[in-house]
């Protein structure tokens, strides 16, 4: 009992590469000399020295166990500190934590990915899996919505995914001059015929409202509720079910999630302030 490592103590990893994705969003590629495997949809607690720890999804290719990738938006103190780190510097990592996307369940069927904003981060590993192994899923479609053209994440990657056969649909809440694509909420992109509802599984990540409406729409298009999965967000301090912050009704988001099948959370999401 006593010899067990303390899940509250981070290990130290070095930053190999820092990619400025857009204004205020930075991807950090960490060297994982000992190897680092994870399930797509899982997250790590990242620690910036002297500032603190926050939960951040793993956004890299699961096949590359020597490299660990995170994409961070600078919103508060810790995320700002993380985005300021430079290659060669070190940070603390605890993880992988939580329950990822139920990918076994999808095997051979259609995969519907719906992301809002930085919610694309935990779906990126799934897209990379699909690209690496085209036979793993039947059809893959990605619906991605973001605020405006300037905040479209990973344009090149999405182009690459498109070339590999993923059907990528992008929309923005408000367009700026020069934007050729769709404008409006992400649910408007979802059309019958994009996937075969009977064999499709949907993975959703984004703001709670976005997920709620997307889930409704996809369910309306025929995907059974239990095959719609949402990645939830709650305040997290420990990431391992000890601190009580990520309570969501009967669930602890860090331990039981962050990914939940719709039926587990649907009614909870209706309750104000749960």
């Amino acid at each position: 009992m006593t010899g067990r490592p303390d899940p509250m103590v981070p290990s130290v990893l070095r930053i190999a590469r820092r990619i400025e994705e857009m204004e205020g969003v930075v991807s950090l590629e960490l060297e994982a000399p000992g190897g680092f495997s994870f399930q797509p949809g899982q997250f790590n607690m990242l620690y910036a020295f002297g500032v603190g720890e926050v939960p951040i999804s793993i956004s890299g290719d699961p096949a590359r166990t020597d490299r660990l990738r995170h994409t961070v938006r600078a919103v508060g103190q810790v995320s700002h500190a993380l985005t300021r780190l430079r290659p060669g510097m070190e940070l603390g990592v605890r993880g992988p934590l939580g329950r990822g996307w139920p990918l076994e369940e999808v095997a051979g069927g259609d995969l519907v990915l719906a992301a809002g904003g930085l919610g694309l981060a935990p779906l990126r590993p799934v897209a990379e899996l699909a690209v690496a192994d085209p036979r793993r899923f039947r059809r893959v479609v990605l619906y991605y919505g973001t605020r405006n053209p300037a905040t479209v994440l990973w344009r090149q990657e999405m182009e690459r995914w498109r070339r590999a056969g993923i059907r990528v649909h992008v929309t923005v809440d408000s367009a700026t001059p020069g934007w050729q694509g769709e404008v409006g909420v992400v649910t408007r992109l979802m059309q019958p015929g994009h996937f075969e509802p009977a064999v499709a599984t949907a993975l959703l990540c984004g703001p709670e409202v976005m997920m709620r409406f997307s889930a409704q729409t996809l369910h309306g298009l025929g995907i059974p509720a239990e095959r719609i999965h949402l990645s939830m967000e709650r305040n997290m301090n420990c990431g391992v079910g000890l601190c009580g912050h990520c309570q969501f009704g009967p669930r602890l988001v860090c331990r039981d999630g962050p990914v939940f099948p719709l039926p587990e959370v649907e009614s909870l999401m209706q309750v104000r302030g749960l």
Partner: protein
Amino acid sequence: MKARLIDKSGLQWLLDRLGSQGYEVLAPCLENGVVEAGPVTSLEELPAGVEEETEAGRYRLRFDGKEGTDLLFSHALTAMGWQRFLHPSSEPLWRAELRGGALEIQPLPAEAPRRALVGLRACDLAAISIQDRVLAQNDPRYARRRENLFLVAVNCGRAAATCFCHAMGTGPEVKQGHDLVLTELVGGGAHRFLVEAGSEAGAGMLQALPGREPEADDWEEKRARIEAASRQRRRLPEDTGDLLASSLDHPHWEKVGERCLACGNCTSVCPTCFCSRMVERTGLDGQQATHWRLRDSCFDSEHSYLHGGPVRRDRAARYRQWLTHKLHHWQAQFGTTGCTGCGRCITWCPVGIDLTEEVAALEVAA
């Protein structure tokens, strides 16, 4: 050997023995007008003949050895519970140092002294077993502290007005989780303790206790005492869980929200509450940082903070979180209820909000 009957000197012998085995002995004593666990070397320090009168938002001590003998354990509970010995209000977890860009993280050892807790009640043991389920798996610090405890429980001979362990099925009789359990007896004018073991370590200690074999009337008195302690006024309905599950939108939450101070007293005294938050502390030089764990309360706005605001914005939502978590969601999360029926949250709420009444209000109005 199943049990021993000892007198006060036998009990003192037990305290001494525990002390000589390197345990810090903590037992109920009088402190600032309440009964509270503190370091004890002599039986003299125990709150002999003291009973607490509790009500929602009220706690007073009464001194009268009304059974002719000053019972050492005539009080029902320690005021704030024992959880602070397992789950301290603040604790440093690790220290970090940054040199150049290189980061070094040093785990800080947990303080886990050998402690003998003497005078726990059935509900206190229930609370420890609940916290075991929540924390022992993933928190090696808790686990280490837990391993170093020797638990001497006491069967209640009297319940305080706020007790409802009987309804929660956690007491008043001590059945599990203890190393030793005492029942304080005074029948026939002789002040004595019936001691039983609940673990191997306890059995070992029992062997060595100076005393004799208990007799039938000792057992009878024990039974009668526990029966007396089982007479409790407060209760929770059998179907509390279902009731709460279907009451998440109940208008009554708003009403409690108006009365609730969101002060966190209930979460602080509850022996099963485990919430904590992590904070980073740095010194002036900026070269070192220490990562701390502090106890936390779901009544604080920070607790559910997300994107610049709390998810649970008002007191109504927070009270609902506390109550439904305790009495219902805990079951889904940890396979047990989060309430032992100790009544501390009722007693120590400054405005006397009583969870059993709140549940009853949901029931009536539902």
